[in-house]
C-alpha cells in the first residue's frame, strides 16, 4: 500500500514537472511573437515615412528618380498581404539598403539636406532605425533562448512530444553594424 502511494506521488511530481517545462517553452515561444510584433510596429512606422521621404526628395531633385521608384515599389511589396513572412524580411532588408544609399546621395543636395521638412524626416527615420534595431535584437535573443531550450535536456523531450521546432533569427544585417557609420553621416 505504501509503495503504491509513493508511486502516485512520484507520478504526480513528474506530471507537474512536465507541465512546468511545457509552459516554459510556450512562454519562450510567445516571447518570440511579442518580439516580432515589436518589429512589425517599427516597420509600419517606416512604411508610413517612406512616401514623405519620396515626396521631399522629389521636391529638390530630379536625379534620384530610380532610387525613389525602387523604394516605393519595395514598400508596396512589403505591405502587400500576398508576400510570405520570409520574403517580407528580405524585402525589408532591401528597403534598409536602399534608404541608406539614398541618404548618402542626399549629401549632394545641400538645399534638401538643410530643409526643415527633411531634417524632421531624418530624425524620425533615425529614431525608427534605432527602435527597429532594438526590436530585432530582442527578436534574435528570444529565438536564441527558445532554440536553446528545445535542444537541451530534458526540455528537448517535451519539445519533441509537442513537435516544437527551431525558429529562424533575423540575420544581423550589415545594417546593424553599419548603423554607426550612417549616424556619422547625419552629423
Amino acid at each position: 500500500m505504501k509503495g503504491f502511494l509513493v508511486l502516485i506521488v512520484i507520478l504526480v511530481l513528474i506530471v507537474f514537472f512536465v507541465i512546468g517545462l511545457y509552459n516554459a517553452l510556450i512562454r519562450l515561444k510567445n516571447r518570440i511573437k511579442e518580439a516580432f510584433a515589436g518589429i512589425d510596429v517599427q516597420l509600419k512606422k517606416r512604411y508610413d515615412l517612406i512616401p514623405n521621404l519620396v515626396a521631399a526628395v522629389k521636391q529638390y531633385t530630379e536625379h534620384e528618380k530610380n532610387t525613389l521608384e525602387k523604394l516605393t515599389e519595395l514598400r508596396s511589396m512589403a505591405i502587400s498581404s500576398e508576400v510570405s513572412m520570409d520574403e517580407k524580411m528580405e524585402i525589408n532588408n532591401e528597403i534598409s539598403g536602399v534608404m541608406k544609399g539614398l541618404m548618402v546621395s542626399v549629401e549632394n543636395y545641400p538645399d534638401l539636406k538643410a530643409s526643415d521638412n527633411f531634417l524632421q524626416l531624418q530624425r524620425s527615420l533615425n529614431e525608427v532605425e534605432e527602435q527597429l534595431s532594438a526590436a530585432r535584437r530582442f527578436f534574435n535573443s528570444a529565438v536564441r533562448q527558445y532554440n536553446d531550450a528545445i535542444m537541451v535536456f530534458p526540455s528537448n523531450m517535451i519539445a519533441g512530444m509537442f513537435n516544437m521546432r527551431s525558429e529562424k533569427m533575423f540575420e544581423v544585417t550589415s545594417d546593424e553594424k553599419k548603423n554607426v557609420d550612417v549616424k556619422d553621416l547625419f552629423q
Partner: protein
Amino acid sequence: MKKIEEFEKYFNDIIKPKLQPLEEERKSVKTKIIITCIILLVIFIFMINFFMQDIRLILGYFVVSSVIIGLLKKGYTSNFKDLLIKDIIKFISEDLVFNKSGKIDENQFRKSKLFTDFNRYDGEDYISGEIEYKSDSLSDDKLKLEFSELSVEKEVGSGKDRRVITIFNGMFYVVDFNKEFEYYTKIIPDSKKGFFKRKDRVMLEDDLFEKIYEVYSESQFESRYILSTSMMERLVEFYKKRMKNIYLAFNSNKVYIAVESGTDYFEPKIFTSLYKFDIIKEYYEDLEMVISVIEELKLNIKIWSKK
C-alpha cells in the same frame, strides 16, 4: 567636459602651489611620527630587561605607543579634501555649486530603485549644477546633474547582536535627461544578481557585457534601445579599467549612476606626497565616465522632444 590632460595641467599649475602649506604640514607630521617611533623603540630596547619580566608590560607599552602615534596623526587635520574639491569643480564648470555637508536627497536615491533595503542614509560633498559638453558637432549642450558621496547602510539586530551592513558606499550621480524613459531599466553588476531568474531580465548579445553586468527592465525593447552595442562597450571598458562596481538606472527623465568605491577618494596618506595626481584622477575620471554615458545615450536617442 575638458580632457583629463588639461585637468592634470590645471592640477600642476594651480592646485599644487595651493597644496604647499598642507604638504609642509604633512612632512612635518611624518617626521614627528618617525622620530617618535624611533624614540619609543630605543626606550623599549633600553628597558628590555624590565619588559621581559611580564608579557603584559610589553602589550601595555605597545598600546601606549599606538595611542601616542594616533594622537600625532589626529593633529594632522587635513583641509586637503575641501580645498581640492572646490578647485576641481571650478575647473570643470562655472555652473557647479559645492556643498560640503550636502548629499543627494534620499527620495531621489530611492527613486533610482537600485538599493531599497536600508535604514541608514548619509552622505557629503554634494555638487550640483550644469556642465557644458559637446553633444554633437553642431551644438554645445548643458548637462544638468547633481552628485555626492553616499554611505547607505542597514542596521540589523538589536542590543548585543546589532550589526551594520554596508548597502552602498561610493559616489551617486543623478543626471537630467531631456527625454522621458517610458519604462524602468536598471543595470547592476553581475555579482549582485539574485539567485532566482527574473522575468524582467534582459539577455544581451555581448557575452563580455553579460559576464560583468545584469540588466532588468520593464521593456525588452526600450532596454535594448538604451543599451546599444556602443553603450555596452563603454560600460565594459569602464569596468575593465577601474574594476569598480557600477549600477545604472533609467527612470522617467533621469539617469542614475552609482559607482561603488571602497575607500574615500581623498584620503591623504601621511606617507604619500599630496602632490600625486593619482589621488584625484579617479574622481575626475568617474565624472567623465558618467558624462560619456549620457553622450552615448544622446548619440543613440537623437530625438529629444517632449512634444
